[in-house]
């Protein structure tokens, strides 16, 4: 249940091991706003790299910092290949930042100011291409719309940048390349006489959506059943064992399985629900620990850690989901539905991967 990063990784790993699986996916998930860095993964993860590489997704590992869309720097290690990781923030001497005219979701002035703080000289230039104006005619310029055009016209963009470039050693471009043709970012890097750094935009994240598509293709290639646009709504449980689930689209046709993995995400992804009195898990009604008094759910300071973001479903040591104090024998919870109830597994994309592999190992060890 759930086709985000956790669900996909679990599904692929199980298919690879010869299991027969199905994934019920609503469609949108946290990969749509993936930053490209697997936060909290501290070591080069060979297993993940192998799984991704088989899906055509290249990751790289290096400890350092990465450039954030608002011109700040954050620590990063394991990341998609799109994301450059630098030993320190002064990664260039002179930078040309290229934006598209009328594109407001790439924050070029913030980037420039952030880089200048580290002694990097910046020049911002805007590109205007007739093909992009056609994009505008069909709606506002947002990352995915531009990315669709870029799959066709990226070479024209390269030509323009070649003309703009003076003595800059680095070009910073928005992450709107390689949505369907994954070779494009690499080809752009090779085509320009300067280092190319791709900086993030306002979501949806183009590398995230591409990653999602690649994972799904790989999963289906391995024989997995991907139920797109569907949603688990109910589980049929008897004495701590779930034997089937009902979904929105399949009516009375229940999905039966030996094991069930709940990877439906947090509040935003609707894996968790909330009302004025409680935070709940809608499919199984799993246990969630949180203070009764709603006043304690929030920190009035926006920038501080928010308690509500940490609430998640209860699990036992092997990530069996807990309902009314009892661990369900064949139901596991992975990914952000765990909140930060399992800090040893990390957070964000790191939590998704670690918990997915942990459950896969448990399942494969069973027989």
């Amino acid at each position, binding site marked *: 249940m759930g086709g985000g990063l956790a669900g996909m990784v679990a599904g692929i790993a199980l298919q690879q091991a010869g299991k027969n699986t199905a994934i019920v996916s609503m469609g949108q998930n946290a990969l749509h706003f993936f930053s490209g860095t697997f936060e909290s993964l501290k070591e080069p993860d060979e297993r993940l790299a192998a799984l991704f590489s088989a899906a055509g997704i290249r990751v790289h590992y290096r400890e350092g910092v990465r450039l954030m869309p608002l011109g700040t720097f954050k620590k990063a290690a394991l990341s998609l290949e799109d994301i450059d990781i630098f030993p320190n923030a002064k990664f260039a001497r002179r930078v040309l930042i290229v934006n598209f005219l009328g594109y407001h979701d790439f*924050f070029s*002035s913030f980037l420039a100011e952030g880089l200048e703080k580290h002694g990097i000289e910046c020049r911002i230039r805007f590109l205007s291409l007739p093909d992009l104006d056609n994009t505008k005619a069909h709606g506002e310029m947002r990352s995915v719309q531009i990315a669709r055009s870029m799959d066709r016209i990226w070479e024209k963009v390269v030509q323009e940048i070649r003309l703009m470039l003076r003595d800059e050693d680095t070009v910073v471009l928005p992450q709107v390349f390689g949505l369907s043709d994954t070779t494009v970012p690499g080809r752009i890097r090779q085509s320009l006489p300067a280092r190319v750094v791709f900086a*993030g935009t306002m979501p949806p994240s183009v590398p995230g959506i591409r990653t999602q598509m690649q994972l799904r293709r790989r999963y289906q290639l391995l024989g997995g059943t991907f139920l797109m646009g569907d949603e688990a709504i109910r589980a049929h449980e008897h004495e701590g064992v779930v034997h089937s689930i009902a979904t929105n689209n399949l009516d009375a046709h229940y999905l039966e399985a030996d094991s069930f993995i709940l990877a439906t995400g947090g509040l935003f992804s609707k894996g968790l629900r909330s009302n*004025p009195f409680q935070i709940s898990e809608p499919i199984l009604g799993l246990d969630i620990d949180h203070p009764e008094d*709603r006043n304690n759910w929030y920190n009035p300071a926006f920038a501080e850690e*928010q308690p509500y973001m940490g609430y998640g479903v209860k699990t036992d040591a092997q990530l069996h989901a807990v309902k009314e104090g009892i661990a369900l024998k064949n139901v596991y919870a992975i990914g952000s539905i765990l909140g930060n109830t399992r800090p040893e597994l990390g957070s964000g994309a790191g939590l998704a991967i670690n918990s997915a592999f942990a459950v896969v190992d448990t399942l494969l060890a069973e027989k």
Partner: protein
Amino acid sequence: MNPNEFDVIIIGGGITGAGTQRDCAMRGLRTLLIERSDIATGATGRNHGLLHSGARYAVNDAESAEECIRENRILRQIASHCIDETDGLFITLPEDDLSYQQTFVDACKKAGIGAEIIDPELAKRLEPSVNPELIGAVRVPDGSVDPFRLCAANMLDAKLHGGQVRLHTEVTGFIREGNTIKGVHTLNHQTGEETDYYAPITVNACGIWGQHIAELAGVRVGMFPAKGALLIFAHRVNNMVINRCRKPSNADILVPGDTVCVIGTTSTRIPFEECDNVAVTPDEVTLLITEGAKLAPSLSETRILRAYAGVRPLVSADDDPSGRNISRGIVCLDHEERDGLKGFITITGGKLMTYRLMAEIATDLVCRKLAVEKACTTADTPLPGSEEKSYEAVAQKVWEAPTTAQKAAASRMGTRASRIRSANRRDDDLICECEEVSVGEINAAIDRMDVSTLTDLRRRTRVGMGTCQGEFCACRAAGLLAKAHGCVERERKDLADFLQERWKGNFPIGWGDTLREAEYTQWIYKHVLGI
């Protein structure tokens, strides 16, 4: 001429101050308005946005009722682009006393308010969201008014008449010679600059904060802060204002406005020190939802966008220091007469509805003191933007074939929408998709309406007021502000302040879709964009 010398200084950038500045400026005075924060940050921007017919006051306060209906008619003429002529209902529910209806209608008639008893069945047809269990309904000429727009339009007109405005500037003290106030010391919170301004008359129009300003001048004005909490819902559930036909009580007015509707209010006395930071409590939220659903049952299923609270500037009568005899009427104090302090006037009490009348009363007094003989013309001179009544006609004139976004701009700016006629085609790009605000409209506000921060921009254009609460548009608008002001560093902090300000109104109602949106925003800004 010393550029820091004026005929009159007005302290306070709420509707009373802005209205007073406009009136003074239209009578030919050289005016300066000083506001420590932004326009409409106090009670002006923290109420229902109800264009009272006066019916609510008819039974208990005939004077206020008469003032309201008079001003109601005037505002429809002079501020049409700030007003939505929705009409209103006063409904009687089974738990209410139906006999009150006749008392109510009689009192309305006496005050000159057109109040018409209608069949509950007709009320349901006119306003499908109304509680179907109603047993009585009265139709009155209520409406809704955008207080931010109204305040901005008054200030704009004052500026068009030569007035000057200093926002984000606080009065830190008075320049006093003997028994006369000669001017003010100020501190600009954004630049740190300290400046003195001089004028023979200073008007204190600071709402609840008037008590503090009066203290600085050395006189006492006793205010009684009363907090009112309100909730904004994410849809315009009702098209007419819905009130309860009973003695005024908690949460008994539901007002539609633009794309949303507002339920309120509560009334709690609070200590003066809390005025700067009023918070909405969970109990108030519960009360507002429960009572609101009695007016329109679908409210209990509607997403809440924000919770907020304002502080009413109630004044105690001079002869009653206990505060029991509190007036909701207009209070204009001539401190020369009252306290022997020359050159200082306080205008307070009153309501959003009666701001123009308050301004007229204050300006009359200013003119008397300055021996200027000029009559008030604010009652029949339209505000800038309101020269044409229909926003659709305005949009047509400006754009020939206006898009929905351009129509939305015309509904916000009125005839001033002509100022955003696209200098280049990129001006049509949308920054805020929820409220359909374009680059052109934002740049027009930055250039001509004293915008320093994102929150200032929100008050003038509705950027970030919609369902996403600024999640997507805040960054985009920050980019435009950084460009206009040439300072990214400042904009970075501004963006953080804006998000904090939005969260303040979100967490008291943090559940369901509001919490989903908040989680997303928090994640995006912290982990994806890297604020």
